[in-house]
């Protein structure tokens, strides 16, 4: 049998560790609250008639949702790193890029600081190495 559970039981201790992962935003309750309307807006694009209204006038469609102006602008810019900073979740943001006709590979590459070709080549070569990307504090 294994040793005692290593999973922290203290929520503060549990959450604090997430900020130590390089280049990563974990979808915590704080982000879920900040991004509630942003994510619900994205969810509305699951319906074909909403997608049509969205395509016809993105600005007007966004104005109908109680989001911050920063969130609206980041959606118009398709700035996915910014959207994650503003409480967006990638599976919800996927409704926006799917409506644009983009694949996960295309949309995700825009967050990596690489071109689509460079990103796709990195994946074919085995993906991004975890070495040096595990912990800011430990630099490993």
């Amino acid at each position, binding site marked *: 049998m294994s040793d005692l559970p290593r999973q922290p039981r203290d929520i503060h201790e549990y959450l604090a560790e997430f900020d130590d992962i390089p280049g*990563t935003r974990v979808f915590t309750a704080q982000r*879920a609250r900040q991004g509630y309307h942003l994510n619900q807006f994205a*969810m509305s694009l*699951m319906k074909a008639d909403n997608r049509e209204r969205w395509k016809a006038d993105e600005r007007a469609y966004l104005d109908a949702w109680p989001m911050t102006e920063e969130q609206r602008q980041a959606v118009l810019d398709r700035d996915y790193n910014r959207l994650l900073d503003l409480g967006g*979740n990638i599976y919800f943001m996927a409704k926006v890029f799917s409506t644009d006709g983009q*694949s996960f590979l295309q949309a995700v590459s825009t967050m990596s*600081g690489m071109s689509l070709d460079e990103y796709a080549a990195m994946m074919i070569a085995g*993906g991004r190495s975890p070495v040096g990307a*595990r*912990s800011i504090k430990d630099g490993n």
Partner: protein
Amino acid sequence: MARITAGIASSHIPALGVASDLDRTAEPYWAPAFAGYDWTKAWEVEQKPDVVILVYNDHASAFDMKIIPTFAIGCAESFMPADEGWGPRPVPVVMGHPDLAWHIAQSCILDEFDMTIINDMAVDHGLTVPLSMMFGKPDAWPCRVIPIAVNVVTYPPPTGNRCWALGEAIAKAVASFPEDLNVQIWGTGGMSHQLQGPRAGLINREWDNRFLDRLEGDTDELRHMPHIDYLREAGSEGIELVMWLIMRGALGRRTRALHRHYHVPASNTAVGHIVLQPE
């Protein structure tokens, strides 16, 4: 009596579903990912499971931010493929097994797992891609399916230990169902992948294979792996792998691997797949 005869783990990468739907599985990019499922497709034809308990996560399809159940069980007669933003996948409707699903729900609640019961739910690629990988493109899926949807999107997801214990409770529930049914349990999602931020594209072949190693035999080391290890080592979306532990927990003390497959990449993700038998 009903019995769990096997467990399967598999990635549920949406791009694999697209490749299947568009008949592109023989293309050089996709062929090696699909080839590792040929053995399982042939084996499933022989096994003829009556029911698959399919553990997966919804990706903002049936559940939005309004309601976030940690463990939800689908008790409906049938489940429609979800429209995830580009129209529903052209795959058969998923037929449920309400009698067994309600039996599992009731038994698990008495066993102190407070399941959310779902009577109307669309199922997204998390559930339908594994069906395509294991059964190909039939006119109707060859078995009934009981969806178990796990929250792995909004933190915290359930711990690995809790997932393993839920698997044990599901196995106990199945064993007390009076009808003679051949039941499989599948755990889906993973393996290493990160779909966000500057660290996007992370893959950890060595860690993934160590994870697969520890599903075999009698070790229960994985039930105590904390979430932070998944996040650091397998990427932010690698956390889906906790769902595999529900499958593993349902197989009892010891397992034997019948087949195993690992391939990088499919889209942003490492494909992992294993077929296990309880021993």
